[in-house]
Structures are given as structure tokens and as C-alpha cells.
């Protein structure tokens, strides 16, 4: 099969993919959409049957009071579920926690991620090994990450306590997950450990697209490495940074796995993020109508953020959109 591609290159003088600059103007085949319809049909069936219909149903359910999966009476309540959300203090607390979690973890991930991206781009010996090490947290399943940190932070046998007491930093074992605020910060640490590599790799791809000549001319002009980082690298990476910011904010609405495994939403519901709050209301308290309304609020926020993301993406490189 690959031979055919090779043949085409030689007989038709078509340049191989590696050497050709990506085409910016593409000749479109103007044809009735039959082929396209047939090729897209499988994807449409697989996706839309399981997404679009449930999406509409979530919207519908949110106007009813549904208190069981097999409920027989589900009175229409109009917008009351939405009104209940706005009046619910637990909801606003979960919003506050999600905001705190997002701002702190994204800030730390961008800072450390930038440093690691610069290191990944630096002339290191054993760079392949360093890259393999940095990939590790990203590849670790989220639930395994949560379970690992649950062990590290455990109040009875956790390795963090063992380390800090043996170094005489702590006099005795400490319950890291014992108070809501401390537990929330531990969620941040676990998330930063796992997600920083992703941010670093993303920023690295931005770094690698910067032409080296501008550093050359900056050096000729007498700018040191620190100066050229602040006035060249950082401004040029701003598009990548803004995409990371939007994507991490979208992710924040989804934070669930880590909370479930590391803290279970506790202590005293003190680490319930929006997604966890929605889950707890719908499935622990069987308030499906209220839960659906919450889900719709989340979707509305994500749609707005996605629109911003798409704009940022389109301003960047070529995309099929």
C-alpha cells in the first residue's frame, strides 16, 4: 500500500508529505454531498444517538421534578429547579471551591509547566529520559493518581508523613485530608502533579514553533537570557498560554474522578466541586430533575468557554474549521 503512495510521488511528481509545506489553499471537489453523507453517517449514528437525544432529554427533565429512576409521578415544575439552584448555598459553595481549585491549580501548572517546557527545550544530556519521566504523570490513569495521593497523604501510614517526621519537619503524623481547606489544597497538589506535564508539552510545542533567529538577533542587541524570555518567549507564547487557560477552565467543570477517589467530596462536603455536587444531588439524593438543571447550567458555561476556545484556535494555525 505504501508503495502506491511512493509510486504517485515518482510518477506524478507529487511531493512527499514530509517535504511539502502544508497546503493553505485546497482545491475542493465540488460534488453533491452523497459521498460525504455516507462517510459521515456512521459517526453521526454513533455519536448523535448517544449525545444529542440525551442532551435534549436533560433539558426536558430539568423542567420536571423527578425523584427516582422509575418514578411514576413526575410533576412539571417549570423553572423551579433552576430557581432552587440559584438559592442553594451548597451550590454557590461548590462554585467557589471550583473557582479556587481552577485558579490555583492552573496558575501553578502554567508556572511549573513553563519551566519544564524550557527544560525540555534545553540542550540536556539524556533528554529522551527526561521526556519519558515527564510523560509519566500524564499517562497515569486519573483514578490511579487519586489512589496514589490518597496513600501518600494518609494520616496513619502515608509516605508524606513518614518523610516529614523522619526529617523532623513535623513532630507527628498530620491529617492532610482532615479539614476541608487542607483537603482542597491536597486536591490542587495531586492535580498539579498530574497535569503540569500536559501543560509543559503544550507550551513546548509553542516554544518549538518560535524561530531561533530572533534569539540570535536579541543576543546581538545585547539581551541576556532572562530579558529575552520576558520580552520574546513569553509574548510569543501568549496564544498557547491562553489556550491552556481556556482548556483548563473547561476541565475544571469536569473535575470529578480525583475528588471521588482522593476525598470523596469530604470532609463535611468541603471538597465538592460543581461536577461532584451535581453527581451527589442526582445519584446520592436521587434528585434527577434538580441534577439535570445543574448539568444544563454546566453545559451553558462550557458552551460559552468552547466558543472562546474555538476563536483562539482559529486565530492560530490552520484547522479544518
Amino acid at each position, binding site marked *: 500500500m505504501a508503495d502506491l*503512495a511512493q509510486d*504517485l*510521488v515518482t510518477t506524478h511528481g507529487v511531493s*512527499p*508529505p514530509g517535504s511539502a509545506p502544508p497546503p493553505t489553499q485546497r482545491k*475542493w*471537489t465540488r*460534488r*453533491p454531498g452523497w*459521498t*460525504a*453523507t455516507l*462517510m*459521515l453517517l*456512521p*459517526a*453521526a449514528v*454513533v*455519536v*448523535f*444517538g448517544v*449525545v444529542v437525544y*440525551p442532551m435534549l*432529554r*436533560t433539558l426536558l427533565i430539568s423542567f420536571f421534578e423527578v425523584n427516582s429512576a422509575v418514578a411514576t409521578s413526575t410533576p412539571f415544575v417549570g423553572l423551579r429547579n433552576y430557581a432552587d439552584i440559584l438559592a442553594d448555598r451548597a451550590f454557590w459553595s461548590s462554585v467557589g471551591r471550583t473557582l479556587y481549585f481552577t485558579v490555583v491549580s492552573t496558575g501553578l501548572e502554567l508556572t511549573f509547566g513553563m*519551566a519544564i517546557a524550557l527544560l525540555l527545550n534545553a*540542550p*540536556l544530556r539524556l533528554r529522551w529520559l*527526561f521526556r*519519558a519521566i*515527564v*510523560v*509519566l504523570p500524564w*499517562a497515569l*490513569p*486519573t*483514578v*490511579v493518581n*487519586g*489512589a496514589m*495521593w490518597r*496513600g501518600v497523604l494518609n494520616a496513619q*501510614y502515608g*509516605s508524606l508523613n*513518614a518523610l516529614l517526621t523522619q526529617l523532623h519537619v513535623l513532630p507527628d503524623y498530620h491529617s492532610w485530608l482532615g479539614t476541608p481547606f487542607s483537603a482542597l489544597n491536597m486536591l490542587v497538589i495531586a492535580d498539579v*502533579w498530574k497535569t503540569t506535564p500536559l501543560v509543559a*508539552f*503544550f507550551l513546548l510545542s509553542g516554544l*518549538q514553533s518560535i524561530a531561533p533567529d530572533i534569539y540570535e538577533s536579541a543576543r546581538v542587541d545585547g539581551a541576556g537570557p532572562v530579558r529575552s524570555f520576558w520580552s520574546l518567549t513569553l509574548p510569543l507564547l501568549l496564544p498557547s498560554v491562553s489556550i491552556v487557560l481556556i*482548556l483548563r477552565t473547561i476541565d475544571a*467543570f469536569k473535575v470529578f474522578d480525583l475528588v471521588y*477517589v482522593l476525598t470523596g467530596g469530604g470532609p463535611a462536603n468541603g471538597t465538592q466541586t460543581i*461536577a461532584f455536587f451535581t453527581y451527589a444531588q442526582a445519584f446520592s439524593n436521587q434528585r*434527577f430533575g434538580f441534577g439535570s438543571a445543574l*448539568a444544563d447550567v*454546566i*453545559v451553558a458555561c462550557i458552551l460559552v468557554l468552547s466558543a472562546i476556545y474555538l476563536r483562539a484556535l482559529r486565530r492560530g*494555525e490552520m484547522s*479544518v*474549521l
Partner: protein
Amino acid sequence: MTPSLRYRVFIHASALLVSVVILAPFAWMVLASVSTPGDLIARPYHWWPQDATLSRYSAIVHGSGTDVASAFRQSIVNSTIVAGATVVISTVVGVLGGYAFAMLRFRFRRVTLLVFLVTYMLPPIALLIPLYLMLSALGLINTKLGLIVVYCAYVTPFVLWILANYFLTLPAELEEAARVDGCSRLGALWRVMLPIARPGLFATIMFAFLLAWDEFLYALIFTSTGAAKTIPVAIADFSGRYDTDFGLVASGGLIASVPPVLLAIAFQRYVVGGLAGGAVKG
């Protein structure tokens, strides 16, 4: 110009520090998985297990009956089947769709693509309630088939988006030339585009596998017994219930991490390219 010695010492020391911070918790998990329960709770803590034991691993591999270890093995089998089927279906479907988006122009192309992209961005929590009600009605709760159906919908938009962008970077003349030589659309896709798209295709398959292997929320709600529970759910179960034997959680977690970690290291140079294509999923 060669970098100064001070600079080289600095970057190597920093890389070492980063490596230690990344590896420390992971290394502890590895050690804990072979430590005896006594070593694990000893104070002062024994960092190096005094008599290392592989008993948990052998219990997971050979265990029979209804104990925790064999429940774990069952969940590995379930995860493999579910993730495998999801990857195969969503890749086939995604290749066709991605090719259509990249190579053909048709009505509502942009709108359709946007709808796919938005479904990719929707959080699972948004669809959880109606999907739960739907799967209950269809009798697909706690079945691997139910999970595969849901996962295909979850993974396909992602595959489609990455591949559509990837096909777009391939030279269109190649496809046109194949068509001039008498290939049909599908023939051109299969015999010309797919072979040269192989690196991108492999990377996409890896990402798709990671998504399916890692998914937790759907699996948590839609499965309840060993018949369909996947690895993340099994680990979450252990981690909550068997707080005293962290070693079992650790060994299970390490086994669950082997496929994704090996894949990610093998494909690490695509991680950057794939992420640049918009493949960021937390």
C-alpha cells in the same frame, strides 16, 4: 556558541529536581506494592521493604473465586474488552468522517463539524442522567455493551477532530493523483491516504485508548458488578474500602498503569503534535 558551564549545571540540576518530584510518589507506590502490610504501617516507616513480597501480584494474576484480587483481574479483562472495542469502532468511524471533513466540501460541513466538536467538549456529567435512564430502559446497565456504546460516542468526536486536522496537512495532490489513476474515494483513502497518515493514525489510536481506559464517571454509574466494572472503578472501590492494605491498591494501580504508560512513552514524540491538534483532555 556553546552554553556556559554554569548554565549547563543549572539546567541539569533543575531537570534532576523535576525528575525526583515526579518519580518520588510513583516510586513509593512501587515499593508499597511489594511491602508487607507490617512494613507499610511501621513507624518509623521502612522505606525499603524488609522482606519484599510479590504475593499481591500473584493473587491478582492467579486469584480465583470472589476475593478482591480476582475481582480486580476481572476488571482488567472488562477494561481491555471495552477499551479495545471502543478504539476499533471509533477509529473506523472517525477515519471515514475525518476524511470527509478534510477532503470533501458539502452542505452544512462547518455546522456538522462544530456539532461534533461541541459534543467532544461536553462534560460526561451533562449526559449522565438521561443516559442512565436510557440504558436502564434498554437493559444495558451493568453490561460491557452499554459501556462500549457510550464510550464510542465519547471517543469518536475526538478521533474525528484529530484525524480531520491531520488529513488536512497531507498533500491533496496525492489523493487527486490516485483518483486520476482510477481509485474510488474509499480506494484513495485506503490505499494512499491511510498509509501516509500512519504516524498520525497510531498517535490518535493511542489517545483514543487512553480516553477509554481512563474514563471513570460513566463506568462508575453504569456498572455495579464484576460483569462490567472497569479498572478505574475497581481501583476506586479498593481505595475506599481497603484503606488498610495500601499495597493491594498500589499493585492494582500499577498494573492498570502499564498499558497507558508504555503507550505514552513509546509515542511521546506524538504527544506534542497531538496536543497541538487540539487533543487536550484532562
